[in-house]
C-alpha cells in the first residue's frame, strides 16, 4: 500500500508557560496508508496531538521529516496545498465553528479555497447530505446537541474534499449517544468515500473499529499493529495508561479464571460466541 503520510525521525520541542523545555515528540517514525483508518492512542500528553498537527502543517518539524502526498511539511510553500489535502477536526466543536449558521460554517473552508460560487454551493449541499444534516442547515450551531455540532465540524472539513481527515479526540466532549453518532459517520465516510482517516482517541471501543492502531507514550511510538494483535497484549496496554476494550477486558479476566477463551477477542459478540462454544 502507498503511504499518504510518511514521518521519519520526527522530534519536536516546545517551551511551556513556566519556561521549561518539553520534548513532545522524540524520534517518531511512522506511515499512514491511503484509504486506511488509523487510530492513534495514548494518555493525555503522550504527544498524539502534536504528531497529528504536523500532518497538516499546523506545526513544522524541528528535526526529522514529514512528507504528505510527496510534499515536505517543512517547506512553507507547500502549506496551502497540504491543508487542502489533509483536513482536521478538533475536540471541542464550539471552538472550531466560525459562523452562527450551519450552512455558512460548512461553506467557510471552500470559501477559503477561493472556489467558484456554484462549486461551493454544490459542496455544501453534498457535505450536509453526507452527514444527514440537511434539516439543520439554517439553524445556529448553538441550538444543536454536542454530537450534531461535531458532525457540522466534520461536514465543514469534508466540504474541502480532503484526501485525509484527522480527528483529534472528536468524541471526548460528547455523551455516549453523540459518540456513537460521530463514530458511525466517521467509519461510513472512510468506507464510502475512501477518505484516509486518522482517529486520535482514548476510547478503546472506537479503536476496535480501526484498521491499524498506534500507541504513543512520552512522545514515542510504543506499539503499532492491528487492534486484534495489540489488545492481546493486555499488560503492555495497561502499563501505557490505557484500558482494553470492555470485551477484551472481560475475556482477559475470564482467561485468568481458567476459561479457555481465545486471546484476540475484541467485541462483545465475539466474546459471547466464544463463551457459547466452550465445551
Amino acid at each position, binding site marked *: 500500500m502507498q503511504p499518504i503520510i510518511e514521518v521519519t525521525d520526527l522530534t519536536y520541542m*516546545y*517551551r*511551556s*508557560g513556566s*519556561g521549561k523545555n518539553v520534548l513532545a515528540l522524540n524520534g517518531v517514525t511512522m506511515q499512514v496508508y491511503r484509504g486506511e483508518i488509523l487510530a492513534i492512542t495514548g494518555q493525555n500528553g503522550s504527544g498524539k496531538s502534536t504528531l497529528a498537527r504536523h500532518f497538516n502543517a499546523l506545526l513544522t518539524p524541528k528535526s526529522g521529516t514529514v512528507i504528505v502526498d510527496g510534499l515536505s511539511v517543512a517547506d512553507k510553500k507547500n502549506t496551502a496545498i497540504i491543508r487542502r489535502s489533509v483536513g482536521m477536526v478538533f475536540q471541542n466543536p464550539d471552538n472550531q465553528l466560525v459562523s452562527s449558521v450551519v450552512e455558512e460554517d460548512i461553506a467557510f473552508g471552500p470559501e477559503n479555497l477561493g472556489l467558484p460560487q456554484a462549486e461551493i454551493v454544490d459542496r455544501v449541499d453534498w457535505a450536509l447530505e453526507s452527514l444527514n444534516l440537511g434539516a439543520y442547515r439554517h439553524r445556529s450551531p448553538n441550538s444543536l446537541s454536542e454530537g450534531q455540532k461535531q458532525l457540522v465540524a466534520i461536514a465543514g472539513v469534508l466540504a474541502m474534499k480532503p484526501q485525509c481527515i484527522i480527528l483529534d479526540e472528536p468524541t471526548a466532549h460528547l455523551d455516549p449517544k453523540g459518540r456513537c453518532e460521530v463514530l458511525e459517520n466517521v467509519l461510513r465516510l472512510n468506507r464510502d468515500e475512501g477518505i484516509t482517516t486518522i482517529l486520535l482517541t482514548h476510547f478503546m471501543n472506537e479503536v476496535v473499529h480501526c484498521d491499524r492502531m498506534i500507541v504513543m507514550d512520552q512522545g514515542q511510538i510504543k506499539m503499532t499493529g492491528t487492534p486484534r494483535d495489540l489488545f492481546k497484549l493486555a499488560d503492555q496496554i495497561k502499563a501505557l495508561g490505557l484500558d482494553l476494550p470492555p470485551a477484551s477486558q472481560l475475556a482477559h479476566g475470564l482467561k485468568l479464571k481458567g476459561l479457555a477463551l481465545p486471546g484476540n477477542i475484541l467485541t462483545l459478540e465475539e466474546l459471547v460466541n466464544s463463551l457459547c462454544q466452550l465445551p
Partner: protein
Amino acid sequence: MSLSVRKIVISGILGAISILLGVTRLGFIPVPTPAGHATIMHIPAILGGVLEGPVVGLITGAIFGLFSFLQPGAPFFADPLVSIFPRLFIGVVAYLVYFATKRINTVLACVLAGAVGSATNTILVLGMATIRGYLPSEVSVSIGVLHGVPELIVAAILTVILVKGIRRIRPEEENEPQP
C-alpha cells in the same frame, strides 16, 4: 493594514465578552451615586491593547461601540458619535501607555494602561455627549467624577490581574504585543 488570523480571532472573542457584559448587565457595577452604575464593558478593549497591540484594541473597542449603538443602554448611545467614535480609542491609548511605560515596570504599566484606557472612555464619551448637546457640561463633569473614578480604579486593578492571569497560560513569545 493587514490582519493576522490571531488578531481577528482575539478581537472577535474579546468583542464577544464586551457584548456579553452589556447584555447580561454584569458589566455594570453598582456605584453609590444617584445615576446608578459604573461600567466595565471597556475592559476587553484595554486587554486587547495591552496583550495584543493597538489593532486588536481598536477593533475590540469598535465592536463594543457598535454594539452599544445597536442596543443602547443609555439614550444618548443611540448617537453613533457618542457610542462608537470614543470607543475606538480605548484600546489604542491603553496600548500606547503600556508600551511607553513597560520598561519601568510591567505591573505599573498595566495599572496605568487600565487607568488611562478607562479615563479615555469616560472623558471621550461624556465629552461627545456634551458637545452633541445631550448633557450640560456641569452634569458631565459630575458624572465623570462619580463614575469615572471608580471605573478607573476597577479597570486598573482588573487589568493587572487579568493580564497576569492570561499570560500564565500562554507561551512566552506571544506575551508581548506586536504593533
